[in-house]
């Protein structure tokens, strides 16, 4: 059943509210800007689709347009943070941190300045734009960088909270957002602390622990509900912070269930599943299955059909849970 402590939306399974996670960035950046005048937002010719335009309208004097120049986006942001500003730099994740990764590494990560890299249009939810615009590697790219925190919000409300929280860390942060509308699962009352995973579904004596990140969390919850009907109890945990991982929570859940499944809209190499597998191999070796994109690129299509085609649908997560269970 839904964990009441997570204070999730009442309509989570029945016509949930729909909004893209990037809308959360738009709202959150304005809130962050209201509470701290050091916050600035930069974009590389994508103000509207990154939702940086919300900040632009509210704080035009703190909005900086750098043109189609992602290397400049990162390094101008680094210079501003080095001075003392808190820059959120916005583009599509394939371009930033895709194209400008070295600039991010040298001028933000090694410099250790608090730039917030906001990668929009991450995952297959980018849809018709096709493989070039569907970032499936960004978590891997960013979680190997020292000093960086990596956050992947599950819905627009969590995206808002993550943005507000990122402004306050004093560190570099990577925030991952998606283009398409997805169910709003969390509420303003749902707790959010960077580095603290949220158990969203908790059945008695769970046999498999499901760990999900991003909007696919909704499919993970649908899976848990379906499996409960079949007598297979699970937990579903929202791992919104991929770095640092909430080691204590994840190890405890995996130990308790004895099997684990990771669910993410990312390549299976180097993402959430990889991070959890590294942790469990060290602290609690556990049979584990990985739901993610299987080392291939996406293509044009509607988000829903892409998720099904690439093995990220509810039926695929159900299969993965059963496989993990059989390996116990």
């Amino acid at each position: 059943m839904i964990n009441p402590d997570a204070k999730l939306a009442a309509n989570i399974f029945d016509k949930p509210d729909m909004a893209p996670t990037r809308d959360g960035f738009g709202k959150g950046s304005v809130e962050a800007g209201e509470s701290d005048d050091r916050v600035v937002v930069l974009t590389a010719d994508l103000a509207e689709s990154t939702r940086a335009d919300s900040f632009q309208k509210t704080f035009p004097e703190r909005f900086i347009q750098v043109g189609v120049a992602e290397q400049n986006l990162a390094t101008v942001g680094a210079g501003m943070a080095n001075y003392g500003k808190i820059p959120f730099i916005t583009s599509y994740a394939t371009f930033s941190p895709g194209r400008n990764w070295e600039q991010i590494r040298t001028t933000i990560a090694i410099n250790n300045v608090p730039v917030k890299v906001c990668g929009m249009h991450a995952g297959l939810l980018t849809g018709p734009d096709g493989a070039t615009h569907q970032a499936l590697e960004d978590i891997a790219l960013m979680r190997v960088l020292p000093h960086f925190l990596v956050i992947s919000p599950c819905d627009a409300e969590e995206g808002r909270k993550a943005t507000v929280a990122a402004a306050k860390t004093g560190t570099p942060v990577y925030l991952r957002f998606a283009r398409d509308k997805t169910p709003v699962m969390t509420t303003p009352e749902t707790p959010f602390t960077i580095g603290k995973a949220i158990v969203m579904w908790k059945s008695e004596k769970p046999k498999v622990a499901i760990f999900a990140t991003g909007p696919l969390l909704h499919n993970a919850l649908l899976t848990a509900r379906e499996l409960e009907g079949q007598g297979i109890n699970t937990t579903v945990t929202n791992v919104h912070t991929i770095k640092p991982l909430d080691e204590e929570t994840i190890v405890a859940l995996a130990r308790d269930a004895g099997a684990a499944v990771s669910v993410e809209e990312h390549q299976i190499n180097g993402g959430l599943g990889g991070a959890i597998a590294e942790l469990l191999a060290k602290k609690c070796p556990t049979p584990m299955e990985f739901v993610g994109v299987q080392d291939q690129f996406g293509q044009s299509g509607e988000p829903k059909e892409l998720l099904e085609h690439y093995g990220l649908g509810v039926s695929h997560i159900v299969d993965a849970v059963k496989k993990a269970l059989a390996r116990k």
Partner: protein
Amino acid sequence: MELTDAEVRALESHANDIRKTIIEMLAAAKSGHTSGPLGMADIFAALYFHVLKHDPKNPDWPERDRLMLSNGHITPVRYAAMAHAGYFPVEECLTLRKFGSRLQGHPERERLPGLETTSGPLGSGLSQAAGYAYAARMDGKTFRVFCAMSDGEQEEGNTWEAAMFAAKYRLTNLTGIMDRNNIQIDGNTEDVMPLEPMGDKYRAFNWHVIEIDGHNIPQFIAACDESKSIREKPTLILAHTTPGKGIPQIENDYRWHGAPPGKGPTDKIPADKQRDVFLEELKKAV
């Protein structure tokens, strides 16, 4: 204000001291770049002993001028200039590139106070300096941001993204200083990737360009003064320099770009004599 002859001679003497330290530190490190640091010694002497508003005993002084070094591989000239200016003991220069040293092979902001930023990968300094200048202007700060860069790194696209940005936002508080020494690792710049007409390129990007002889200290100081008076545009000081300046045997020889004394070409000076011969040459210059 015009410098007196004595002031000019004092700055030239600082430049010579910096060159000697560069040779000693590179020889001790047994790795690093020789040509670029020697070529920029006059400009760094002028910066640290005349142009920059700074306090070696308080490197984080908020009102200091900022000097970003974009081509991090010439950092020995910066370390030597900082040491002679009083940031740290000159002897510490001999730890260059060694384990545990604050003087990393390429400069790291968090290791040594006063470095302003981390660099090495080329082409990213000008945009950081531009972002810094933009942020400082938002807060009405009056210090200047200088960015020293190489000619070779003008081959990087990021540099031109920065050039457009600085011009668009009329960053009059930003001064770029280009070490136009015509060499890079693989050869002469015009063979590797032609850069001319360099000054016209920046003029076309709406910068104010001042061309100088990078070894003429009064010219450099006058250019810095002029850049403060320019309205509506960032300034580029295009400094024509001689790589390896001060040691005739290696001047203008691109093979010395990335070699330290003791490991450079041996057709003129045997490896084991390079350090001492170089120091002798620099002694003659005084």
